[in-house]
């Protein structure tokens, strides 16, 4: 039955594109269908896992490469259908032609994401994601803001190259395991075949990492989101970008205990890079002066937390259930929140015709509902309790201390990518000694700090640093809220003419789920 999630949107896109049916209306019918089917799939697999396994993955007696056996699949599917529905409900294009193009792209983009999340075949999984990049490219190039063509090309080159690296990594892994499906790979692992470490996980991390805008491969992301038309930004930042993390977690999950050997070599380097996401990009976010740039960067920054969950999961050799569940909750929550923020940004822009933080002001006076919803989404993004993001972030941070005891520091001296790079650097003529000296300094400083906290391991220490991301988020998000909505009514805010209620429903729809999963987090666990 899952195939209808692919067929219906494609038919709707064909109707809009080739037969010129009304864009938003047709897409809305398709998105409603997907929403119902997706929520049903989520409910049936969550509350009654054994009820209907085969009926989802077959059609008319023919077996499909789709299944929901992966525990992350239903949650990601839910995220995809909710955000798609919201994006199309809130679709507000400059003219009829644009509306049709936006609707078609949104449908194709979400089809690609959904196809990737429900694929059991690894090549389908890859292929559906790639498909979704085409509408992104065309839409940013055609309807984007600012220097749209450069942005579109940059994103295409980054993502195209990353996809190739990823494809090679996946193929090498599949070839080694002699399995081209996730299920088959799981069985291969259970039968005792172990994948070789080193190059393959490196390719996978680089490929998936670039798609999720892991530091330092993140340069494409913020400008692309800032420039993309609203529905594209919502779907790409909210849904499609989670593809990389979904892939990493799925592989780690099916490898179980083996995942520590497999990804472990790169784990310390990953910890360093994700701190780059949280802290480096966090400070960059604070410095932004436009709302869309700020949100684009904040979305990059928050990926760091989910990578942290991944590192924790790998470090625990797949035994830390809390990490993977927290990551799933956080992916869902972040997807909903960032989609809502981009949606409201589109509305702010259509009201005030600017997104410069300094030139708006006092907008809450004119548009109190908009202010309220933006505030809600902003607070959710910071991680306020009773909102969905808090559930995810809290679980992730807690999970990194699961099983940790004071004084039991991680074993030192295991070969890993980070120490390999440092050794390589310290062997370089002239620079080497200096670098080695600096490294020794950092190393002893770190172990001193770790000692103060009773011997933190690398993962726990990273968590302690990453926690500061919450503060950074609060700084830029609250400051943005203050500049846009509070204070004296600025010139731009004067232009606001008021929103009709139809424009609000889409945001309220998203807000409902953010509150729902914040108040009843057990739905996700």
């Amino acid at each position, binding site marked *: 039955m899952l195939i209808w999630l692919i067929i219906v949107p494609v038919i709707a896109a064909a109707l809009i594109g080739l037969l010129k049916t009304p864009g938003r209306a047709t897409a809305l019918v398709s998105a409603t269908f997907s929403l119902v089917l997706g929520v049903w799939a989520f409910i049936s697999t969550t509350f009654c896992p054994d009820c209907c396994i085969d009926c989802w993955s077959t059609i008319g007696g023919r077996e*499909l490469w789709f299944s929901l056996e992966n525990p992350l699949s239903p949650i990601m599917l839910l995220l995809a259908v909710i955000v798609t529905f919201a994006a199309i409900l809130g679709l507000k294009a400059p003219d009829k032609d644009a509306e049709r193009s936006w609707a078609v792209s949104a449908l194709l983009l979400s089809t690609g994401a959904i196809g990737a999340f429900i694929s059991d075949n690894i090549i389908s999984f890859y292929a559906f994601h790639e498909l979704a990049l085409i509408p992104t490219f065309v839409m940013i190039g055609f309807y984007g803001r600012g220097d749209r063509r450069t942005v579109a090309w940059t994103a295409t080159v980054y993502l195209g190259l990353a996809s190739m690296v990823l494809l090679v990594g996946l193929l090498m892994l599949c070839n080694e395991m002699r399995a081209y499906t996730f299920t088959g790979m799981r069985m291969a692992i259970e039968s005792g075949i172990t994948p070789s470490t080193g190059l393959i996980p490196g390719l996978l991390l680089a490929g998936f990492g670039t798609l999720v805008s892991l530091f330092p491969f993140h340069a494409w992301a913020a400008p692309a989101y800032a420039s993309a038309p609203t529905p594209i930004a919502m779907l790409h930042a909210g849904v499609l970008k989670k593809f990389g993390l979904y892939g990493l977690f799925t592989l780690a999950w099916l490898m179980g205990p083996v995942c520590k050997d497999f990804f472990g070599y790169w784990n310390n380097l990953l910890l360093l890079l994700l701190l780059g996401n949280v802290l480096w990009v966090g400070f960059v976010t604070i410095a932004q002066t436009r709302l869309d740039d700020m949100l684009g960067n904040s979305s990059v920054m928050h990926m760091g937390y989910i990578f942290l969950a991944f590192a924790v999961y790998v470090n625990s050799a797949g035994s830390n259930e809390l990490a993977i569940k927290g990551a799933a909750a956080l992916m869902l929550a972040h997807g909903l929140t960032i989609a809502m923020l981009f949606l409201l940004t589109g509305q702010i822009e259509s009201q005030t015709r600017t997104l410069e933080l300094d030139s708006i002001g006092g907008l809450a006076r004119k548009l109190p509902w908009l202010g309220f919803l933006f505030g809600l989404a902003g607070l959710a993004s910071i991680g306020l309790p009773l909102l969905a993001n808090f559930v995810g972030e809290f679980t992730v941070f807690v999970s990194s201390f699961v099983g940790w005891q004071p004084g039991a520091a991680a074993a030192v001296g295991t070969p890993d990518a980070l120490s390999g790079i440092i050794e390589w650097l310290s062997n370089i003529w002239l620079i080497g000694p200096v670098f080695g000296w600096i490294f020794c300094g950092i190393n002893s400083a770190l172990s001193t700090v770790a000692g103060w906290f009773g011997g933190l391991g690398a993962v726990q220490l990273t968590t302690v640093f990453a926690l500061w991301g919450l503060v950074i988020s609060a700084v830029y998000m609250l400051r943005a809220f203050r500049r846009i909505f509070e204070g004296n009514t600025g010139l731009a805010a004067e232009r606001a003419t008021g929103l009709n209620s139809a424009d609000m429903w889409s945001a309220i729809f998203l807000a409902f789920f953010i509150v729902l999963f914040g108040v009843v987090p057990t739905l996700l666990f």
Partner: protein
Amino acid sequence: MTNDNVSVLYTWGQFAPEFALVALAVLILMADCFTRLPKRVYAITAAIGAVICAYFMNTEAYYSPFGMIACLATALVLLLAYDYHKVACASIGGGDTEEGTTELYSLLLIACAGICCLSVARDIIMLFVSLEVVTLSSYVMAGYFRRNQGSIEAGVKYLVLGALSTGLLVFGAAWYYGTTGTFALHPGLLADMFARQSVEFQTGFYLSIGLLLLGAFFKAGAAPMQIWIPDVYQGSPTPVSAFLAVASKAAGFAVLVAIVMPFARLYNLFPDKVAVIVSGIAVAAAATLLVGNLGAISQNNAKRLLGYSSIGQAGFILVFFTNIAANNTVQCVTSYLVAYMLATVAAFFAIAMVRTQRGSEEISAFRGLGKTNPRTAFLITVAFASLAGVPLTYGFMVKYYSFEAFVEAMQYQSGLIWLLPFMIVGAAAGFYYYFKVLREMYWEKPQEGDVTLQVPVVTAAVLTGCAIAIIWLGTAPLVFIPN
């Protein structure tokens, strides 16, 4: 070689489709002399004949995958020639006279018959003679627009470089005969060769294989024999460019299969010796990927772009030959050629249409098609997306097969890993240059005076058919589990 050997290798009956093709070609020429039918009727007749032959190539008695590809490609090219008729008349006779267009159709059929013979050749004489049938007809066709300077230039360039490659092929054949004492390409003979002969002999043998490969590379458009491609594609009449790009390339790979595949069964016996040949092909593949894909980036002429693209795609096909130990190499090569044919023929149809109505073959002539002809633009998008290897098109599937074959090949010869970056760069560059066409269609606005293109019926039918085939073949394997 004695008569006995020939009868062992071939039977007269197995060449029935080829004879039929040549007979049809002659019939068309005769009919043109003695009747006054509109010339375009002959194009349609020839296309139907080629399709019927393609059908027989797929039956057990005449089974030949490369022949089938060649026949289908020829049929499509004939339809393209039918659509291109107006430009052809102006460039051949001058003005509206149809004089002298029929010969093009029968030349296409004769060349096609040559490719079909080639694809069943099991010895070098047959290989050489049928290859020359293809090549000689192609020389004439490339220079067919005698009132067009570019076409004449293309014909001459093709002739000169083609003669060089023929020379290399003959030289290689001589060495082959000298070292092995036979013209037959047979695993048993080669095994004897490796087992019994001295190192000096084997060096001569490698030289012969190298020269034969160079001859095949010329047709297939692989480095270092790719130099002719951009100029000849750009200058030749568009239908002829399409023929060279698809059918003639299939011929090149048929030759390559005939030369290389006998070694496949020797991999277990003589891994080191076969590895020499595989490494040689890998080097050529890397060079081809680099030259084709990087050269394409800066192109502004659509036909030239497709020329470089054909080089780049040949690189990906060559990668299959690094994995000759697997028993599905021929199948992979033909799949790739089918995918390439569907997309490339569609692209040439689009170019011909734009050339006829907007008078230009530059990529910029596609500007604004997304606005003026959205449906056609979508079909063209599918074709170029397939060339670039966008998922859910057949082009992606075959590019994936290429990567898969490479990963498998590394099990036998792990030293080949250096080829990987070339493949990645090639595939990523493809996204850039194929999308230039999409960018013109969707990002650029139509200029003043750009009217909606009138899409001819044949073009519309072929574009739609290709798009459906590309999407279906690209999607089905990813959705349904094979029974």
